C-alpha cells in the first residue's frame, strides 16, 4: 500500500506577461490577478523553497492558484 498526497501541486502550462505574472493558463486567458505573494522557506534543508504565487481569475470565471518555482523553474497549479 502506498500513501499519496491529496491536492499536490501539478505542473501547469502558463503563458507569462511582461511583468512575470501569468497571462494564460492552459490556453485560457487570465482575467485578473487577485493576489500575489512570495514564499521563501526551508533554506536550512537541502531543498530550499522559493515560489512566487498568484491567485487569478480566469476568463471563464474560475479561480486558480498558480506558482512559479524560483529554484527549479516551471509553473505549477495547486488547489485554490
Amino acid at each position, binding site marked *: 500500500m502506498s500513501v499519496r498526497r491529496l491536492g499536490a501541486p501539478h505542473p501547469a502550462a502558463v503563458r507569462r506577461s511582461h511583468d512575470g505574472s501569468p497571462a494564460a493558463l492552459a490556453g485560457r486567458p487570465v482575467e485578473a490577478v*487577485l*493576489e*500575489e*505573494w*512570495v514564499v521563501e522557506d526551508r*533554506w*536550512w534543508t537541502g531543498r530550499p523553497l522559493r515560489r512566487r504565487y498568484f491567485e487569478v481569475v480566469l476568463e471563464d470565471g474560475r479561480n486558480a492558484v498558480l506558482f512559479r518555482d524560483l529554484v527549479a523553474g516551471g509553473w505549477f497549479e495547486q488547489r485554490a
Partner: protein
Amino acid sequence: MPYVELHCHSSFSFLDGASHPIELAHAAAEHGHSALAITDHDGLHGAMELAQAAKPLGLRTIVGAELTLDDSSHITLLCQDRTGYGNLCRLITKAHEGTRERPTEPTPPSVPLEEVERQAAGLVCLSGCAQDGAVGGRVDRELHAEAALVARRLLRAFGPDRFRIELQRPFARRDRRRNRHLAQLAERLGVPCVATGDVHAHARDRVQLQDAFVAVRTGTTLDESEPLRRGNSAHVLASPEAMTARFADHPDAVEESGRLAERLGFDLTSDLGYRYPGSEDGSADRRLAALCRDLLATRYSGRGTRAAAERRLEEELAIIRSLGLSGFFLLHRDLLELAREVAAEVRGPDSARSLLPPGRGRGSSVSSIVCYLTGLSHVDPVENELFLGRFLNEELTALPDIDLDFPRDIRDVLIPRVHERYGHDKSALVAAFATYQVRSAVRDFGKALGLPPGEVERAARSADPFGAHDVDRYLGEAIGRRRAASARWQALVRLVRDAWGLARHVSQHPGGMVISTQPLNEICPIQPAAMTGRQMVQWDKESCADAGFLKIDLLGLGMLSAVERCVDEIARVRGERIDLSRIAYDDGRVYAEIQAAETMGVFQIESRAQMQMLKRTRPESLDDLTVQVALVRPGPIQGGAVHPYIERRKALRADPSYEVPYDHPSLEPVLRDTLGAIVFQDQVIEVAMAFAGFSPGEAEGLRRAMSRARSEAAMRSYSWASRALASPRRTRPPSACSPTSRRGCACTTARSSCAPS
C-alpha cells in the same frame, strides 16, 4: 516626493530585527534614502545608535517605536517634536511598568489605549503593521467593525494631521484585499494612507537570521515555526524606487511617506535638552579652581614635581572651563564625599578600615590631576607621565567617564543613597546589552535548527569564543567534516557568523547610573531592572555618552571587599592598623612569586591565561604588570601584540643592548613602554596622532568607534584612509596589522584603522 521608510526594526527589537542600526544606516544611505525611521518594539534602545551612525552619512533619523497595546496589537508612533519625544518616552516607560514583578520571568510590555490617547501630543500615529497592527491586523482577520472603531479612537486622539492608515506589502497572500479595505477605511475617515516597509533586515543575507530569531524567540524550531515566521524577504530594506514599484496600486501612500517625513523634525542628537545637576552653576569654574589649587599646594608641598603639577593643573582647568565641565567635576567630588559618609556608616566607628579610601578611581580618569587632587583617583598622573588626551581634550563631545570601584557593601548602600540625594525619578541605572557570542549563538541556533543537542553542545564547547568566522573549522573538529558539511550544520555556521555581536536582550550595567535635573522618563524610556527596586534607562553607556548624560560608574569590586576584610582581620589578629598607601611597589620577593605565577587570588593576574603569560613576560615592576594585565585581552591577542612583546622582552633579558624595532620612527616615543606593540587604548589614540596626524578629539573618536560592536561599519564613516593619505607623516601602515576584526575590542591594535576604506 520620494519614499521614506517610516517603519523599521533594528536588532534592538530583540530576537526580531536582524541588523544593527549602523548596518541599517549604511544600507539606507547606499539606497539613496534621505531619512530613516527606527521603530523598535516598545523601546528606544537603538535610536541613539542609529542617530549617531546616520549623521555622518547625511541621513536623517526619525525617532519612533512600535508600541504594543494591552490587547497585544501594535501601533507605530513617530516623534514630530520634543513634546512628542517626551510623550513617547513616557508611554514606553508605562508599557514596561510592572513587567518585572517576577524578576526572572519578565512579562511582555504593553500599554492601555487610554494612555496613548492621553499622551498623543507631538506624535504621529500610523495604524500598525499588516499582521498585528491595531487596525491592519483586524482588517486582515476580517474584523472590520472593530478595526473602524479603533481607527476612529486613534483619529480622535491624534487628529487628521497626525493619524495615518498604514499600508504594507509583505507579499503575503491577502495583501491586496487588506490594503483595499484599509484604503476604503481611510477614505471614510478622511485621512491619507501611508506606505511602510516593516523592515527587519538591512540586506537579503540577513533574512535567514530573522527567520531563526523567530524560532529562538518562540522557543520552537525552524521546522515548527512556519506560521509564526515572515515567510519571505519582503522585509529587507529596499530603495525608494523599489518601494514605489511595490506600491504601484497606492502611489499617494508612497508620496505621503515623504510628506510625513518632512514634518518629523525631532533630532535626537541635538534636541534632548538634558542637563545634569550643577551644569548651569555660574560659580563652578571658580570653586573648582580654588579647591584644586589649595589641594595641590598641600599634596605637592616640597616635591620635585610641583612645578609640573601646577602646569598640568592649569592646562586641565583651562580645558575643563572651555568645555563647561567644572560642575561635572564638582558633582563627582560631592559623590565621593557622599561615599565617604556611607563608608563611615558601613564600616562603623573606629574601624581599622577607616584609613582606606571609600573607593578607587580606574580607567582613563586616572590621567587627570583634577581627579587625583579631589580624591577621585589615587594615581599621580604627573609622576606616572599619564596621557591626558583620552580622558579630556578640547574636542570632547561627550561627558568624560569616571569609573569608581567600591567594596560591595559600601556600593550596595551608596546606590540607593544616590537615588535619595538626586531623586528617584531623576536617577536610574544604565542598560547593557547581552550580545550574541559564538557559544551562545551555537546553542540558540543549533536548537532552532533541530540539531542533536549533544552535538550542538560539543560544537559550542569546542568553538573559539572569539572565532565567529572560524566556526566551520571548529564544527568539523567537533562532529566530523562530513556531518559538518550538511545543509543544517552549514546553516548554523552562517547564522553564528551573522548574529555575532548583535544584542540578544537587555540587562543592567554593573554600576553605571545617570542623573538628571529633569525627570528621566521624559528624556529616555525607563524600564525595571532584574534586581527588585532598581530601574534603568534603555540606553547603554555609549548611547548615554552620545546623549551627553552624566554617567557615574559605581562598581562593586569583590577584591576591594577582600582587601577591607583583610585589613579588619590584620587588626583583629595582630592588633595593627594597616595604611595601604605606605606599601612599597618594588618588593623583589613579591615579583619573584609573580614571575613564578604563584598568583592564585591575586587581583587581575590569577586567571589561567594570566598565569601562563606571567612565566613568559616575567614582570619586574608595576609598569611591567600594567602591560601584563592589558596583554591578556581580546584586542592585543587578536591584534598580534602578544608575541612581539614577549619575544622582545626575552631578547632584552638576554641582551640589554637589544634594539626594539619600531614600524615607523614616529611610533617610538608612543610605543616604547610596550616594546613597539600596541597594547593600550591610549596608544591607539597616540598612534593615530603621531602617525596619521589625527587631532586628540579625532583620535579618541576613532578609538571609540573601534571599541563598539560592528566597529568596521562605524569606522568606515571615519574615512581614515583619505585622512591618512593627506597626512605628511604617513609612509605605510604599521606591520602589526592583521585582517580587520568585526568585533569591538577593549584594547586593540590599530589594525582596523590600517585597512583602507
